[in-house]
C-alpha cells in the first residue's frame, strides 16, 4: 500500500517536473525564435539562415534534425525488446552519412541556393523538374511528419502517464492525445513561420545538446552500474530478456527465421536487405537534410558540418546501444511492453530506474524520468520543425516562384508564400495526424527513406555526375522512384493484411516485403536512365557551368 502511494506521488512529481521542464524548453525556444525573426530579412535569411552558421553549429543542427524520436526512443526500444537488431538500424542510419559526405554535400552547397530542386533543375527545363521535386519533397516530408506527430501524441500521453480511463487537466486520454498533436503542430508552425531557418536551426542545436547530454548521462550511469564491464551488461540484458544469447545476435526482429516456412523466411531476409539498402541510400535524398547544407557559407564548411554530424550521430548511436541493453537489463521487457508494446518508453523507463538507483528513491526516479521525457519532447519538436521548413521552402521557392510565377516573384512575395505554406502544411499535418492517430503509421519513416533513396537520390547523383542527364531523365527518376516505392508499400503487409498493418481489418496485400527499397531503388535509377536516353535534350554549356561551379564553388550563392 505504501509503495503504491509512493509510486503515485513519484509519478505526480515526475509529471509536474516534466511539464515544467517542457514549458522551459518551449519558452527558451520561442525566445530564440523571436530573436531570430528580427535577424530574418531576406529570402536567404528565411530559407538558409543567412548562410552564416559555422560547420560545428550546422553539424549540431544536422544531428538535431536527424536524430528523431524514432532514433532516440525507437532504436533504444527495439534494442531493449529485440536486442541486437536495433543496432542494425543505427548502423544503416550512420553509414548513410558517407553518401552525403562523399557525393552530395559539397557539390550541392556550391551549385544550389535554397532547395534540393535548385541543383536538379540547374541545367534542365525549370517547370517540370521543379514540379516533380516539389511533389517528392512534400510527399517525403509529410510521410515523415505524420510518423513523428502521431508518435508524439501517443508518446506524450505515455510520458505524462495519461492512460485510458484517467484524466489530465480535465481531458480524457484521447482528448489529451489530440491536444498534444495540435500543440506540437502549433509550435512547429510558429518556429518555422516566425523564425525561419535561423530559428529552426537554433532549436535543433539546443535539442542536439539536450539529447546528447541526456543520453551521455544515462549511458554513464548504466555503465557505472556494471562497473564499465560491457560483457556483464550484455550478459545481464540477455539473461533478463529470457532469450539467452540469441538476444545478442541478429534475427529476433529483422530477417526472422520462421520454422517450417521457408518462403516466409526467405522474404523476411530479403526484407532485411531491402531495409538496409534504403537506410543507407535514403539519407542523402531527404530534402530536410539537404537544405541544411545551404546554411553555411562555403562547401568546405558544408564538409565540416557533415564531419561534425557523423561524429555526433555516431556517438549518439553508440550511446543508444548502452541505453537499449541497459533498459533490457535494468527495466526488463515485461515492464517495458506493459507500458508500450513497441518499446518506445524503454529509454524513459530506464531513466526512472537509474534515478531511483543513483539519485535516491522515487523522487530521484521521477526527476531523471522528467528530464528524459522533456528531452524527448524537444527531440520531436526540432525534427517536425525541420520537416515543415523543408516542405514549405519547396512549395514557395520551387512551385510558387519558379513554376507558377516562372521566376518572376519578388523575394518578399516568395518569403510570404513560404510562411503561408508552412501554416497550411502544418495545418494539414495536424488534421491528418489526428485522423491517423489510431493507425499504426510507424512504417512511414522507413517509407520516407525508401522514397528519398528511390526518387531523389538517383536524380541528384545523375544531375551532378552524368553529363548526358536531362529534363526527361530527372522527371522520370523522381516520379518513377516515388511511385514505385509508394505503390509497393501500399500492397505490402504494413498497409493491409496483417495484425500489425495500418488497416488490419482489410486485405489487399500481395507484395511480401515491408521495405520496397530493394526493387524501387534500382527502378528509380533505371527510370532516370530510360527517361534520359529517350530524350534528345542535352545542354553542354549548362553542364559545363554546373560542373565547374559544383567542383570549384565559383559563383556560389
Amino acid at each position, binding site marked *: 500500500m505504501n509503495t503504491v502511494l509512493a509510486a503515485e506521488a513519484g509519478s505526480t512529481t515526475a509529471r509536474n517536473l516534466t511539464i515544467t521542464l517542457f514549458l522551459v524548453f518551449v519558452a527558451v525556444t520561442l525566445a530564440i525564435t523571436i530573436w531570430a525573426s528580427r535577424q530574418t530579412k*531576406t*529570402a*536567404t535569411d528565411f530559407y538558409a539562415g*543567412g*548562410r*552564416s552558421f559555422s560547420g560545428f553549429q550546422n553539424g549540431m543542427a544536422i544531428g538535431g534534425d536527424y536524430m528523431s524520436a524514432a532514433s532516440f526512443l525507437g532504436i533504444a526500444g527495439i534494442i531493449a525488446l529485440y536486442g*541486437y537488431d536495433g543496432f542494425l538500424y543505427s*548502423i*544503416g542510419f*550512420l*553509414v548513410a*552519412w*558517407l553518401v552525403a*559526405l*562523399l*557525393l552530395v554535400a559539397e557539390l550541392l552547397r556550391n551549385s544550389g*541556393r535554397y532547395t534540393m530542386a*535548385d541543383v536538379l533543375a*540547374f*541545367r*534542365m*527545363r525549370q*517547370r517540370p523538374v521543379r514540379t516533380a521535386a516539389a511533389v517528392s519533397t512534400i510527399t517525403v516530408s509529410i510521410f515523415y511528419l505524420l510518423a513523428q506527430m502521431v508518435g508524439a501524441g501517443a508518446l506524450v500521453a505515455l510520458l505524462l502517464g495519461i492512460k485510458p480511463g484517467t484524466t489530465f487537466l480535465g481531458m480524457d486520454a484521447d482528448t489529451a492525445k489530440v491536444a498534444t498533436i495540435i500543440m506540437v503542430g502549433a509550435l512547429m508552425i510558429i518556429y518555422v513561420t516566425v523564425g525561419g531557418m535561423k530559428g529552426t536551426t537554433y532549436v535543433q542545436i539546443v535539442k542536439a545538446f539536450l539529447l546528447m547530454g541526456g543520453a551521455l548521462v544515462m549511458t554513464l550511469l548504466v555503465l557505472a552500474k556494471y562497473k564499465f564491464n*560491457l*560483457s*556483464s551488461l*550484455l550478459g545481464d540484458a540477455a539473461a533478463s530478456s529470457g532469450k539467452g*544469447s540469441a538476444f*545478442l*545476435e*541478429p*534475427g529476433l526482429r*529483422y*530477417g526472422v*527465421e520462421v520454422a517450417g516456412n521457408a518462403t516466409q523466411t526467405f522474404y523476411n*531476409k530479403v526484407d*532485411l536487405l531491402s531495409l*538496409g539498402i534504403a537506410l*543507407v541510400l535514403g539519407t542523402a535524398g531527404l530534402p530536410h537534410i539537404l537544405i541544411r547544407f545551404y546554411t553555411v*557559407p562555403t562547401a568546405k564548411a558544408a564538409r565540416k558540418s*557533415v*564531419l561534425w554530424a*557523423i*561524429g555526433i550521430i*555516431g556517438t549518439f548511436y553508440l550511446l543508444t546501444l548502452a541505453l537499449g541493453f541497459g533498459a533490457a537489463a535494468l527495466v526488463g521487457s515485461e515492464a517495458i511492453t506493459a507500458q508500450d508494446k513497441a518499446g518506445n518508453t524503454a529509454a524513459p523507463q530506464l531513466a526512472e530506474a537509474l534515478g531511483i538507483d543513483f539519485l535516491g528513491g522515487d523522487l530521484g526516479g521521477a526527476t531523471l524520468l522528467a528530464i528524459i521525457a522533456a528531452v524527448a519532447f524537444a527531440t520531436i519538436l526540432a525534427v517536425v520543425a525541420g520537416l515543415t521548413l523543408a516542405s514549405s521552402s519547396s512549395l514557395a521557392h520551387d512551385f510558387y516562384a*519558379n513554376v507558377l510565377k516562372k*521566376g518572376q516573384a519578388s*523575394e518578399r512575395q516568395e518569403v510570404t508564400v513560404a510562411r503561408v505554406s508552412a501554416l497550411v502544411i502544418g495545418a494539414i499535418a495536424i488534421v491528418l495526424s489526428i485522423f491517423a492517430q489510431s493507425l499504426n503509421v510507424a512504417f512511414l519513416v522507413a517509407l520516407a527513406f525508401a522514397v528519398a533513396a528511390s526518387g531523389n537520390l538517383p536524380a541528384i547523383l545523375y544531375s551532378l555526375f552524368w553529363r548526358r542527364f536531362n529534363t526527361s531523365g530527372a522527371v522520370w527518376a523522381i516520379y518513377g522512384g516515388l511511385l514505385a516505392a509508394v505503390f509497393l508499400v501500399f500492397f505490402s503487409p504494413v498497409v493491409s493484411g496483417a495484425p500489425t498493418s495500418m488497416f488490419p481489418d482489410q486485405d489487399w496485400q500481395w507484395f511480401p516485403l515491408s521495405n520496397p527499397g530493394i526493387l524501387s531503388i534500382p527502378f528509380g535509377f533505371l527510370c532516370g536512365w530510360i527517361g534520359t536516353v529517350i530524350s534528345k535534350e542535352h545542354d553542354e*554549356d*549548362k553542364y*559545363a*557551368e554546373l*560542373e*565547374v561551379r559544383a*567542383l*570549384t*564553388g*565559383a559563383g*556560389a*550563392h
Partner: protein
Amino acid sequence: MSTDTPASAPAESAAERYLAVQRSDEFAGLRRALRGFVFPMTVAFFLWYALYVILSAYARDFMGTKLFGSNINVALVFGLLQFVSTFLIAWLYSRYADRKIDPVADRIRAEIGEVTREHGPRG
C-alpha cells in the same frame, strides 16, 4: 513549353568561360582527383556495409560466435567496426580534400575571376 528556360541565363561570355574552364587540363585534374577518391571509396564502404547486412541475414552462426570468452560476439564487433570504418573514411576524405582538392578548386575559382565570397550575393 516555350517559357521553360534555365534558371539563370548567363551572358554568352560567362557560358564560354565555364566551358573553357571545364575543358582545361587543370579542371580535368580536379575532376580526376575528386572522382578518383570518392567513387572507389563509395564502392568500398557500400560493399563493406552490404557484407555486414548479408552476414546478419544469412550467417547467424558466424555472427553469434562469442569472442574473448565473454558475451561480446562477432556481430557486435562487426557492427562496431562499421562505426570505425565510417569515422575513418570521413577523416581520410577530409584530409584528402584539404590537401588535394581545396587548393586546386580555390585556384580555378580565382582564375574564373569570381571573388571568393563568404556570403551569397543576397545574404
